[in-house]
C-alpha cells in the first residue's frame, strides 16, 4: 500500500495521533538507546579495563617461576629474556625484575608509568623467602583504546537494536492498531444520522478492543436509528394531528380565539380576524372589540372568579362596524392549559367561539317590531300598546308621577272609505298616525287602538295639568287639517278625545281605558271634535247613554 497515500486525506486529528505516537516512540527509543549505550559504554569500558589488568596479572603469574629463578640467581640475562617476552605483549608497556637488594635486573626501554602490577618473587626452593619483585606496567593507552573500541561497538549494537525495535514496533502498531483505526474512522465519518442510508453497520471481524468499539458503535447506531425512526413516526403523527386541528381552527367559519387573564388575545383564527377587522397591534384587548366593553370585561372577570361556571354564552354587539351594527353569538369556555399548572382560578385561559348573528337579530327585531307594530301607521299595535301602557303606568306610579291617557276617535272617517276607497282611507290613517307621532315625544306611547281609534299616553310634568286639554285640542286641530289622499284629492276629518289622568282618575289600566272611553263617548255625544277631560259627574250622568 502506498504509505504516502495512506496519510493523505485523513482528518487532521487522526494524523496527529499517528505522528504523535510515532514521534513519541522514536524519541523514547532514541533516549533509551542513548542512555543505555552511554551506560553500556562506561560499564563496558571499566569491564574491559579490569579484564585487561587481570590479564596482565595473569601474565605476571605465567612468568613468575622463571622470574623467581632469575631473581634468585640474579640472572640478568634470564631476566632480560623474561622482560623482553613481556614487553612484546600488547598489554604490557614495560616490565621490571628486581632482586631484593633493589638491583634492577631488567627493565624495558620506556619511561616509568605509575600503574604497575607487582608480584613478589619467592625463593624457588624456600617459599618463605622473597628474592625479588616482578613489576609489569600495563599499556594503559592500549587498554583504554581496546576498552573504548569494545564499548563503542556495544553502544552501536544497542543503538541499532533500539532503532530496529522501534521500526518494527512502529510497523506492527501501524498495522495492528492505527490502520484499522483509520479505516474505522473513515467508515464512521461517512455515517450521517440525517441520511438513514449511511447508517449501516460498520464492518468488523475482530474480537479485540477495536472490535468491541465497533460493536459498541454499531449498537449505538442501531439504537439511534430506532430512536430516529420513532421520532419521525411521532412527528408524522403529530403533524397529521396538528394538520387536522389546524384545519378545524383555520377553516372554521366561526371565529375562535383564546383570551388570557388580562383579556388579551393569545390566538385567533382567520374567521375571527375577518369578523372583527382586527387592528394592527401586538396586544389586542378583546373587550374593546365589543360595543359595551366594560360590560364584557366585567362578564369575563366574573366568569373567571366563579369556579363552578365552566362556560356561558351571550349575544354581544360589535363595536363600530361601518355597515351597521353587527351582532355575534359568543360562547366563552374555560380551558385548562394542559401544559402548565393553573396557579390560581383567575389564571385561566378563556376560549371564545363566536359567529355572526346579525341577520337573526335583525329578523328578530323585525319580527318583534312587526309583532308590536301596527303595519299601517307604524304606531304600536293594540297588544304591544297595552303592554307599553302598563309599563308606563307602573313607572309613573312608582315615580310618583301622573300619566295622561288620551282616547282619540276619528270623526267623519267612514265616509272617506266609502267615498274614496280603502286606499284613501289607509292614507288618511297613515297621515293621522304620523301627525300623532310627530306631536308626542319618545316618552309617550302612541297606539293604534282600533280601526280609527288611537290611544296616547305620556307622563305628566308636575303642574302641567292645565296643558292637557290644550294639547288635546291642538292635536285635534292638527288632525283636522286636510289630508292628501292621492289623485290630487284632499279630505278632511276630525277627532274626539277623551282624556284621563292617573292616578287621579284611576290606578289600573282597565279603569283608565274605560274612563277615557267614557269621556270620549261623551264628547261624541256632545257634538264631536273636542277634547274633554274625564270627570266623575259627567260619566255617572251619562253612563246610561
Amino acid at each position, binding site marked *: 500500500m502506498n504509505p504516502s497515500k495512506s496519510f493523505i486525506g485523513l482528518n487532521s486529528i487522526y494524523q496527529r495521533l499517528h505522528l504523535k505516537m510515532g514521534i513519541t516512540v522514536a524519541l523514547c527509543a532514541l533516549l533509551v538507546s542513548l542512555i543505555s549505550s552511554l551506560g553500556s559504554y562506561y560499564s563496558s569500558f571499566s569491564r574491559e579495563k579490569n579484564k585487561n589488568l587481570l590479564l596482565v596479572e595473569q601474565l605476571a603469574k605465567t612468568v613468575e617461576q*622463571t622470574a623467581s*629463578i*632469575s631473581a*634468585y*640467581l*640474579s*640472572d640478568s*640475562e*634470564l631476566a632480560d*629474556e623474561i622482560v623482553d617476552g613481556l614487553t612484546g605483549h600488547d598489554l604490557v608497556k614495560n616490565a621490571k625484575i628486581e632482586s631484593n637488594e633493589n638491583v634492577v635486573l631488567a627493565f624495558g626501554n620506556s619511561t616509568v608509568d605509575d600503574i604497575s602490577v607487582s608480584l613478589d618473587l619467592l*625463593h*624457588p*626452593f*624456600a617459599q618463605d*623467602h622473597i628474592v625479588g619483585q616482578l613489576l609489569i606496567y600495563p599499556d594503559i593507552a592500549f587498554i583504554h583504546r581496546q576498552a573504548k573500541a569494545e564499548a563503542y561497538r556495544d553502544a552501536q549494537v544497542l543503538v541499532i537494536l533500539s532503532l530496529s525495535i522501534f521500526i518494527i514496533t512502529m510497523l506492527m502498531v501501524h498495522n495492528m492498531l492505527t490502520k484499522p483505526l483509520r479505516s474505522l474512522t473513515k467508515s464512521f465519518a461517512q455515517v450521517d444520522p440525517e441520511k438513514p442510508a449511511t447508517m449501516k453497520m460498520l464492518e468488523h471481524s475482530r474480537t479485540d478492543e477495536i472490535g468491541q468499539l465497533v460493536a459498541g458503535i454499531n449498537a449505538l447506531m442501531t439504537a439511534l436509528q430506532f430512536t430516529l425512526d420513532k421520532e419521525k413516526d411521532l412527528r408524522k403523527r403529530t403533524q397529521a394531528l396538528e394538520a387536522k386541528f389546524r384545519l378545524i381552527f383555520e377553516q372554521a367559519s366561526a371565529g375562535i380565539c383564546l383570551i388570557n387573564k388580562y383579556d388579551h388575545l393569545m390566538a385567533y383564527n382567520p374567521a375571527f380576524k375577518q369578523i372583527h377587522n382586527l387592528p394592527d397591534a401586538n396586544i389586542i384587548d378583546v373587550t374593546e372589540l365589543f360595543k359595551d366593553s366594560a360590560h364584557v370585561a366585567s362578564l369575563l372577570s366574573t366568569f373567571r372568579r366563579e369556579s363552578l361556571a365552566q362556560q356561558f354564552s351571550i349575544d354581544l354587539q360589535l363595536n363600530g362596524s361601518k355597515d351597521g351594527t353587527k351582532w355575534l353569538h359568543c360562547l366563552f369556555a374555560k380551558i385548562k392549559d394542559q401544559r402548565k399548572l393553573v396557579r390560581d382560578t383567575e389564571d385561566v385561559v378563556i376560549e371564545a367561539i363566536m359567529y355572526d348573528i346579525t341577520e337573526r337579530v335583525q329578523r328578530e327585531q323585525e319580527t318583534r317590531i312587526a309583532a308590536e307594530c301596527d303595519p299601517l301607521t307604524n304606531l304600536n299595535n293594540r297588544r304591544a300598546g297595552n303592554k307599553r301602557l302598563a309599563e308606563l303606568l307602573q313607572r309613573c306610579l312608582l315615580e310618583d308621577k301622573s300619566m295622561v291617557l288620551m282616547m282619540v276617535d276619528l270623526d267623519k272617517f267612514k265616509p272617506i272609505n266609502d267615498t274614496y276607497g280603502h286606499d284613501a282611507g289607509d292614507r288618511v290613517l297613515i297621515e293621522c298616525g304620523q301627525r300623532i307621532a310627530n306631536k308626542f315625544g319618545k316618552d309617550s306611547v302612541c297606539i293604534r287602538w282600533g280601526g280609527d281609534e288611537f290611544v296616547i299616553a305620556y307622563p305628566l310634568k308636575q303642574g302641567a295639568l292645565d296643558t292637557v286639554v290644550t294639547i288635546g285640542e291642538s292635536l285635534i286641530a292638527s288632525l283636522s287639517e286636510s289630508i292628501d289622499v292621492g289623485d290630487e284629492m284632499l279630505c278632511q276629518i276630525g277627532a274626539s278625545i277623551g282624556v284621563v289622568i292617573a292616578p287621579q282618575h284611576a290606578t289600573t289600566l282597565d279603569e283608565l281605558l274605560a274612563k277615557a272611553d267614557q269621556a270620549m263617548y261623551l264628547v261624541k255625544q256632545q257634538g264631536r271634535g273636542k277634547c274633554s277631560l274625564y270627570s266623575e259627574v259627567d260619566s255617572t250622568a251619562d253612563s246610561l247613554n
Partner: protein
Amino acid sequence: MKGIFLSSLLFLLSGICQADALVVVVNKDNPVDALSKTQVIDIFMGRYITFPDGNPVKPFDLGAELDVKRKFYQRLVNKDLAKINSYWARLLFSGRASPPESVDSMKLLLARVSDTKGALAYLPEASVDESVKVVYRLE
C-alpha cells in the same frame, strides 16, 4: 681442635639418628663448619658461588647414585629430579649459573672432596669418613 670436636659430635649424633640420613660435607680443611638449609640450597641451586665467608664453593652431584641424588633433592627442596633437571635446562642457555659437577661414584666423590678445598657434596651418612666434614644433615 674445635673442628674435630664438632665433627666427632656430629658423627656421634649421626650414629644416634637414622642410618639413611644424608649429610652435606665439605673438605675437612674448609673453615666452614656448618651451613643452614637455605645456604645449602642456594649453593646447590647455583645462586651463590661462594661460601658465606666468601671463599669459592664447588658443589658436586652424585651422578650415578641416582637414588641418593633423588633423596637429597627431595629432602632439600622437595622437588623430584625431573624438576631439578628442567631447572638446570632452563638456565643452560641463559643463566650464568651452572649445575653442580656430576660425579659417578661415592668413592670418586670422596676423593674429589678431599682434593678440592671448596668442595661441597652430599653423601649418605654411612659413607662419611675422616676426609670430609659434615656441615649439614638432612633427615
